[in-house]
């Protein structure tokens, strides 16, 4: 057996081109499969970095009106449910937000922090490595502000000071004492680096609408998730009845802890892509199988000699399978290394880039991946080598040894042709999916954002109560900052807003005068933002009617709004919107009525591309803008339009902010084009990945068609010679070659198109709801395959045309 492997290895070394091509083909298929598997492994299979992770669950509300997948809980609900629930050890809660860090040497820094209940960290089962956990008394209003800090914050910002416990930091303007340091890599819930107590005070009635929290807990022994969900559903019904009004959500949802953090779209996309890469692998296997077949058909004499010398069937099979196994082992190693490198890159992109993934998602390969890799390489070896090997086992000794016989290990060419037709069919599936994905991405690129993102730099600043206790203080800050920003070189306009386009306007229910709806659930929604006078100029949003905001709109003047054209048309279809009145968040009795003074062109909200497709109710009816002077937010975004490279202004912008308040860090400082790219990231990456898979598939199909045609031309040299001698012209010879390839392509298309229809529908349902089966995609795919066929036929056709009848016949 060992000797068979040794000989197989040597035979491969003596055919370096065959070996290299096979290893590369199989390696790419295996590598892609391992990479996609490690993504699934990272999302689903790897255990969470907490003790007994299976017992950890997340609890949320959902809304049967399906406006959202999950709804956070109002803090008051959490407090009530925490006391009443009987299925979890405790119901912990958290909320995340900005933690402006000051008080250490160097400029102020914006961190992402979490406000957690005192039992949150212990529920997770993670204890601080220094100091103590948060305790219930920390949560009481008026308690001394304390924080548990993350390992890297301790290491990098506090120089790993061993006496860090008891030191104070300035967080969001409050002097906060450090009471603990968490272990390395802990960043619950997503990428946070400081944990502060979540207030457990019921406080004023206002609290309900102010704070929303996410809740989680550990199932008590013997309690299932379904039981917990039923318990919470009962408690919610009781709570709503007790309060005499509906809760924020009308259904309870208890789900595995990780499910809260991994978006179903991402998981769905990953699984779909996993299927896609398995198709690529199948194509690669078919290709290598057909190459191995061709190779051993040419080596039939050798196999016959071995059989005549006494080689058993098993030894002959092992001879062929040995080569496939060595190829698969090399390809598996190559694929594993490739997947490892891609995994590192992906981790970097995911964590540094978009914050889509929680900190514990790790793409680096582990034993699951290793087992999968070995398994997939073995499967590939069998898929690629078993059929040729079994045929080798049935070698016809007499025909193989006959003088001048090219020999055969069964009708290899027929099987090769079937394999190529199968490859073409699978390529059609991948090409169609890539086409659909690319069409979606192009449509998304062309989506009417309604804003000009070039030459605009944006950033965000969070102001907290201790330094900015009221609206006037916050407004003063923006008024002080504006002239410093406009004075920067090349800057033409500066705007402030509660949220900027593409970052996500705030979705709010609204009412108009005369609405008879009283149930808040039935009210329509709009996207709103508070913006400064120059906002529409910075983003190139044109004024259609009335006026924009200006100096007339002050805190004390009549409350006004500017609405988008689609909002105006939807809400007041038969009259002008000017002078009409609209109320945002009508559930709040103190919410003011706003008079519409202007209508501007439409601009899309941030997550349009995700939500418009998945949750139609998210679309909203358009935009309602308020003047920032009448509703100044505590966290404010700014945008400035400038000539030249806006990114080069970053440091000057930070300097301007520091000059106004050295304790306020600027974050998310980037060009608006980057926001645009971020929004399109998901669609683009899907299109890119499918594009890569499809290119692989097409290349493999070309290689497959080429191999079959080359083999065919070689085997039919005599026939071609005879035909030439009988007067066949170049066209006749070319037709002979192309007809063989065309048959494979046609059979492949006939099988592949229905498969592609089904698979692309699946793709649409799972990841790209907007994607449709566009006939153009199919036309392009068919054209691509015809071009591929012509390309693959090029060299065999040239060889066929060069066949000299005299030489061909003499050889015989």
């Amino acid at each position, binding site marked *: 057996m060992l*000797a068979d492997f040794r*000989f197989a290895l040597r035979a491969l070394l003596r055919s370096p081109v065959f070996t290299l091509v096979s290893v590369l083909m199989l390696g790419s298929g295996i590598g892609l499969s391992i990479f996609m598997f490690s993504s699934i492994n990272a999302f689903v299979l790897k255990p969470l970095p907490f003790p007994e992770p299976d017992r950890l669950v997340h609890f949320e509300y959902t809304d049967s009106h399906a406006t959202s997948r999950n709804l956070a809980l109002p803090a008051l609900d959490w407090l009530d449910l925490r006391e009443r629930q009987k299925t979890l050890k405790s119901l912990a809660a958290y909320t995340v937000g900005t933690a402006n860090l000051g008080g250490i040497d160097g400029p102020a820094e914006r961190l992402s922090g979490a406000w957690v209940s005192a039992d949150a960290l212990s529920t997770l089962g993670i204890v601080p490595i220094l100091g103590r956990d948060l305790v219930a008394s920390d949560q009481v209003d008026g308690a001394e502000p304390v924080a548990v800090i993350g390992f890297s914050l301790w290491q990098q910002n506090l120089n790993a000071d061993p006496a860090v416990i008891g030191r104070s930091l300035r967080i969001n303007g409050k002097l906060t004492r450090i009471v603990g340091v968490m272990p390395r890599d802990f960043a619950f819930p997503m990428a946070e680096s400081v944990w502060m107590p979540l207030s457990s005070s019921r406080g004023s009635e206002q609290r309900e609408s102010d704070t929303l929290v996410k809740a989680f807990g550990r199932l008590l022994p013997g309690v299932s998730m379904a039981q917990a969900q039923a318990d919470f559903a009962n408690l919610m019904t009781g709570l709503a009845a007790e309060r005499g009004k509906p809760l924020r959500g009308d259904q309870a949802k208890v789900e595995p802890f990780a499910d809260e953090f991994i978006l179903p779209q991402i998981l769905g996309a990953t699984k779909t892509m996993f299927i896609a890469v398995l198709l690529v692998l199948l194509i690669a296997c078919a290709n290598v199988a057909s190459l191995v077949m061709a190779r051993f058909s040419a080596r039939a004499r*050798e196999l016959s*000699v071995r059989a*005549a*010398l006494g*080689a058993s069937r098993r030894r002959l099979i092992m001879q062929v399978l040995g080569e496939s196994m060595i190829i698969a082992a090399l390809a598996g190693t190559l694929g594993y290394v490739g997947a490892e490198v891609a995994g590192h890159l992906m981790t970097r992109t995911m964590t540094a880039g978009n914050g889509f993934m929680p900190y514990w998602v790790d793409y680096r390969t582990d034993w699951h991946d290793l087992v999968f890799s070995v398994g997939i390489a073995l499967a590939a070896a069998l898929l690629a080598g078993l059929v040729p090997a079994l045929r080798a086992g049935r070698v016809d000794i007499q025909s193989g040894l006959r003088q001048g016989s090219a020999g055969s290990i069964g009708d290899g060419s027929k099987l090769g042709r079937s394999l190529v037709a199968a490859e073409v069919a699978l390529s059609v599936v991948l090409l169609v999916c890539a086409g659909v994905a690319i069409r979606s991405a192009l449509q998304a690129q062309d989506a009417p954002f309604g804003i000009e993102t070039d030459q605009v730099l944006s950033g965000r600043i969070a102001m907290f109560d201790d330094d900015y206790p009221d609206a006037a203080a916050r407004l003063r800050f923006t008024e002080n900052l504006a002239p410093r920003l406009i004075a920067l070189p090349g800057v033409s306009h500066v705007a402030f807003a509660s949220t900027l386009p593409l970052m996500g306007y705030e979705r709010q229910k609204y009412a108009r005068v005369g609405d008879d709806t009283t149930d808040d659930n039935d009210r329509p929604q709009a996207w709103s933002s508070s913006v400064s006078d120059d906002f529409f100029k910075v983003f190139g949003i044109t004024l259609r009617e009335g006026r924009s905001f200006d100096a007339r709109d002050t805190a004390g003047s009549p409350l006004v709004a500017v609405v988008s054209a689609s909002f105006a048309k939807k809400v007041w279809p038969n009259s002008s919107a000017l002078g009409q009145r609209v109320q945002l968040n009508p559930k709040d009795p103190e919410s003011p009525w706003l008079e519409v003074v202007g209508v501007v062109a439409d601009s899309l909200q941030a997550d349009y591309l995700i939500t418009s497709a998945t949750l139609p109710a998210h679309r909203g009816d358009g935009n309602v803008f308020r003047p920032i002077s009448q509703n100044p937010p505590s966290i404010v975004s700014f945008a400035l339009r400038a000539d030249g490279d806006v990114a080069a202004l970053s440091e000057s912008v930070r300097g301007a902010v520091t000059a106004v308040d050295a304790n306020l860090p600027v974050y998310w400082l980037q060009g608006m084009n980057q926001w645009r790219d971020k929004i399109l990231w998901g669609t683009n990456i899907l299109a890119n990945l499918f594009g890569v898979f499809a290119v692989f598939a097409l290349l493999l199909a070309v290689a497959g068609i080429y191999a079959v045609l080359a083999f065919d031309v070689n085997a039919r040299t005599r026939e071609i010679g005879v035909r030439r001698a009988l007067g066949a012209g170049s066209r006749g010879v070319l037709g002979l070659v192309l007809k063989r390839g065309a048959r494979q392509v046609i059979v492949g298309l006939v099988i592949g198109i229905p498969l592609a229809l089904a698979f692309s529908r699946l793709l649409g349902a799972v990841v790209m709801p907007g994607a449709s089966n566009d006939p153009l995609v199919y036309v392009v795919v068919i054209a691509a395959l015809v071009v591929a066929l012509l390309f693959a036929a090029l060299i065999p056709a040239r060889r066929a045309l060069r066949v000299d009848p005299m030489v061909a016949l003499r050889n015989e």
Partner: protein
Amino acid sequence: MIHLGKIEKSYPLEGGRSWVLRNVDLDIADGEFVSVMGPSGAGKSSLLNVLGLMDHDWQGSYALDGVVVDKLNTKQRQALQREKIGFIFQHYHLIDDLKVWENLDLPLQYRDVPAKERAARVADLLDRFQIVGKKELYPSQLSGGQQQLVAVARAVITRPKVLLADEPTGALHSGQARIIMDLLAELHKEGMTIVQVTHNELYANEAQRIIRLRDGWIEKS
């Protein structure tokens, strides 16, 4: 050693059958050296394939060294072949990817001979055939005569009772052919049963007996 009784072999053809071997009765004694002659298509190679147990599709009876072949299944025939038969082909059929000594080693591997014994037997034959200096070369680095020498060595390394040679000198010039014929004569002297197919009257006459085939029939002398 060999007893063939009424061996017949044919292929179905449209409107009849194409006969390859007709009613072949043949006895070859242990240690006998026999030449098979006949024009192209007479059935020489087919007869050799039947004798060498490479062809199982025939009618009649065949006993090899006392074993009734027609009663054996495929596996048993293969085992019998491994034990009793050695082959020499006109076109040598050495394995291109294997060195000279590995080509000799291969049949022993297929017979699960222990490595130590294999090495000893290979060394012995390399010495005896005076090809020690060529042991590390590949077949493509040898002349035709040298390749056939290796092929003969490979055929006898398993110590078969019967050596079947299909035109062993057919592809060689006279000098090389002479060496091979001398070698066959030597093996015969040592007691090996040899059946050679040849077109060369001179070499055929070096055998003890000549069997002539025509259209699948053995010609009566």
